[in-house]
């Protein structure tokens, strides 16, 4: 085996090592409370050992993994997400402390799978990582085992997920080869049966779309987010989504666009359907987690616009959006964790008058929601601006108009939450719980990043450009 291969997966190896240390720590009564800190250390060490250079041609483990700009960017983002989610989990009061070691173990394992997933260069590897993310996710969704909703979330996620990965597996088997490069060669040579091609696209795409919660494969999202522990929902809303988009980018956008003429209209239709359905269903929600779930569906639609356009600027806009979206969505979920800790509820009406009781968290949630709505000068506006710019540049005005009209609809339900927090009178006196320092830190950092990137977006764009060219 090439020693460089081992070096390439060093971040994953470190995480696996720490995962087992965390599991062991859970057995000893003395080290039980260390699980969160240990897993955070694991993520930090792992991030430090990420490769510093890349080359689009470098493959490892006989072509299973690839070290290119995309995997480079996404591994960084995913480790950042994992770090934030660990910090949020440490401030999450509903987590049963006797199981916390297992919880962090699963969190690290799902991170390993996601890291490998974005570097996958072979359909078999893609399938395996997809499945391992899914299986750990089912457990995490149902982690609050005494909570009926959480168990329901786990089962629901499992049923939908098992079906969709099964479909993907069937699709993957259609071409007789699992190597992406050979499939591209077959496509270019025109030696592929057209029916097989269609079936392949639809079946494989369905599995990926399920992970990204693109319509019409989004049905599971609200129920799972509502039932799952909030930090887990936060993770689901960004991590597996980023992975799903990476798969779509690798398997379809880069390779299929030239040969499969229906890709662009198909992708555009799915993008339009996703944003519209997400936003329209979000209008009526009275639970903040369900509202955020539908909002993430809509956001997935915006992200997918960049891939539907498929131009280099569209792909860049997509990656930029994924970065910003991760930050603002984690910020929103983090603020919801803090507020829900105080009011013991995730109903929006129980957030009333939050501004008077906990102004800082109310402001952070407001900033995150306005950023998700795409209001300048917040980062979310820049992200949406780049997506729009790529659509207008490609003359996809239908997509562009759908995006902007959807942002108006979206503003209505985001503003509803803001209105409840700022304009309504406080209901029952909420019990202000002292928040863990980690959560506060994360909230403030995401708020600053949200403002800062909104004003100087080129810092992030510049970084992305380096990786993509």
């Amino acid at each position, binding site marked *: 085996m090439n020693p460089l291969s081992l070096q390439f997966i060093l971040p994953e190896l470190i995480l696996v090592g720490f995962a087992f240390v965390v599991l062991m720590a859970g057995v000893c009564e003395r080290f039980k409370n260390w699980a969160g800190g240990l897993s955070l250390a694991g993520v930090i060490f792992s991030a430090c050992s990420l490769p510093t250079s890349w080359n689009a041609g470098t493959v490892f483990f006989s072509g299973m993994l690839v070290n290119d700009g995309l995997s480079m960017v996404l591994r960084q983002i995913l480790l950042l997400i994992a770090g934030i989610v660990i910090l949020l989990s440490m401030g999450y009061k509903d987590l049963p402390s006797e199981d916390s070691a297992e919880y962090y173990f699963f969190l690290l394992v799902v991170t390993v799978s996601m890291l490998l997933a974005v570097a996958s260069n072979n359909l078999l590897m893609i399938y395996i990582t997809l499945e391992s993310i899914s299986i750990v996710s089912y457990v995490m969704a149902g982690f609050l085992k005494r909570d009926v909703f959480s168990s329901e979330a786990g089962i629901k996620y499992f049923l939908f997920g098992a079906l969709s990965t099964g479909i993907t597996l069937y699709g993957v088997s259609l071409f007789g080869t699992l190597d992406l490069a050979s499939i591209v060669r077959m496509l270019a040579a025109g030696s592929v049966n057209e029916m097989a091609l269609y079936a392949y696209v639809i079946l494989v795409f369905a599995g990926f779309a399920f992970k990204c919660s693109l319509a019409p494969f989004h049905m599971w999202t609200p129920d799972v987010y509502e039932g799952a522990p909030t930090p887990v929902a936060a993770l689901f809303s960004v991590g597996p989504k980023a992975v799903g988009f990476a798969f779509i980018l690798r398997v379809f956008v880069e390779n299929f666009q030239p040969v499969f003429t229906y890709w662009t209209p198909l992708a555009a239709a799915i993008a339009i359907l996703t944003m519209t359905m997400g936003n329209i269903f979000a209008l009526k929600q009275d639970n903040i987690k369900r509202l955020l779930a539908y909002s993430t569906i809509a956001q997935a639609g915006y992200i997918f616009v960049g891939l539907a356009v498929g131009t280099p600027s569209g792909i860049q806009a997509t990656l930029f959006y994924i970065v910003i979206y991760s930050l603002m969505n984690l910020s929103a979920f983090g603020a919801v964790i803090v507020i829900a800790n105080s009011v013991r509820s995730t109903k929006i009406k129980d957030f009333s008058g939050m501004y008077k009781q906990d102004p800082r968290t109310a402001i952070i949630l407001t900033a995150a929601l*306005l950023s998700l709505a795409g209001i300048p000068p917040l980062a979310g506006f820049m992200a949406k601006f780049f997506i*729009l710019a790529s659509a207008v*540049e490609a003359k996809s005005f239908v997509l562009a108009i759908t995006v902007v009209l959807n942002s108006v609809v979206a503003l209505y339900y985001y503003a509803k939450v803001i*209105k409840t927090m*700022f304009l309504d009178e406080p209901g029952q006196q909420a019990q202000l719980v002292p928040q863990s320092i980690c959560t506060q830190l994360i909230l403030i950092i995401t708020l600053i990043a949200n403002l800062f990137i909104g004003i100087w*977006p080129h810092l992030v764009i510049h970084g992305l*450009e380096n990786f993509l060219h």
Partner: protein
Amino acid sequence: MFPILSSLVFLPLLGAVGVLLLSKENKQLIRLIALAVTGLVLGLSIVLLTKFDPLQTQMQFVENVSWIPHFNICYFVGVDGLSIGLVFLTALLGFIACIASKGINTNEKEYYSFYLLLMTGMMGTFIALDLFLFYIFWELVLIPMYFLIGLWGGPRREYAAIKFFLYTLAGSVIMLIGILAVYFNTFPHTFNILEIQKAATLFDFRFQITFFLAFFLAFAIKVPVFPFHTWLPDAHVEAPTPISVLLAGVLLKMGGYGLFRICLPFFKEAVVYFALPLAVLAVINIVYGASVAMAQTDFKKMVAYSSVSHMGFVLLGLASLNPTGFNGAYMEMFNHGIITSGLFLLVGVIYDRAHTRDLNKFGGLGVQMPIYAFFLTMCSLASLGLPGLSGFVGEFLSLIGAFPVYKILTAISTIGLVITVGFFLYSLQRVLLGGLNPTCSKYSDMNVREILTLVPLMAITFIVGVYPTVVLRFQEAAIQGLFNSWGAH
């Protein structure tokens, strides 16, 4: 050189941050800071006026710094004759409305920080010369406005606030697509408004038609042009007095300014193509706005609808496509800002005493409150276009400009003037004349602070009415320049 324009924009922002950092209890200090900042902005804008060379058509006090190189976006600001008047108007009304904010006595800290943030947005919109920057400032106005109406407004404030937010956002996001389309159709790609003006001759007709409409929608909602005006009465009626002043005085002008700064020079053929429909919309605004105002019993709503009517003259002057009409439209914007602000302040004065705005619940106040009666009469007369007061000048120039082009439409729009006279006199009659309504017998006359807010507005109304050149000289050269670039077409 001292960056005077940036100071105008960012001083309020600094003030907003400063206010946020103070403790909630320091109410006096918070108010003092807000007054100092807006006062300083007004002072700077007067310095700007004196240093401004009205004969030049070039941009002055230009600052240009690269901001997002990836998209060739710059922090590019400057003023010319089209913006200088509105910058002064913003600074003046910002200061006056800040004095009038004395009545706000809940959550002062939040109020003044939103207020100052709003100032930044309004000021920035008028000086930005980069389309992207323009859009950022344009949108920046929305968030503070939403909260200012929603938190300190009247009984239906939540409805009014969200309606304002959604309406304006709907218009501006469509404009965003227009901005991007213009960017990608200019070679090399740029957001620089002056560069695009030069390159605009290359836009083909279909492109012009499509994206004229995209920009027009955003501006028409802001102006507001019939049928996009329905947010205005709600927002005006529910907003607290100082915010109504800024809404009518400055926010509506953002729409008119956009039409002159962007639509006219970018889409010349489209403007010519749409001139007649624009004139028709203008006349509908004038007549319909005035007729609806006539039917109101709510004093504030009546003034709000009178704004719809007055903004029709802006659109009419623009649609006439000659320098006289343009000058009239621009005068009308400035004068409407001054006069209607005065009217909203006066409605606020009576509301503070009566806690109602129902025109039928007053009567005979002319004896009870003589100073109030003087100001209200003057403002109403100015607003209805009495010669010798400023309101007349703008409307007259607009009509002169429009008459050679649209004889019948101009004739119809004078009906609007008659109705305007009607409802203002009718409201004066109900408020000031007749026997003293017993419920009004306790009302005190205007206090010094209230008088102070109105005196500068009245003075400007008199001066401009008698000697319009004081305003015209600032805008004439720029408008002639704008028209000449047209004539070449």
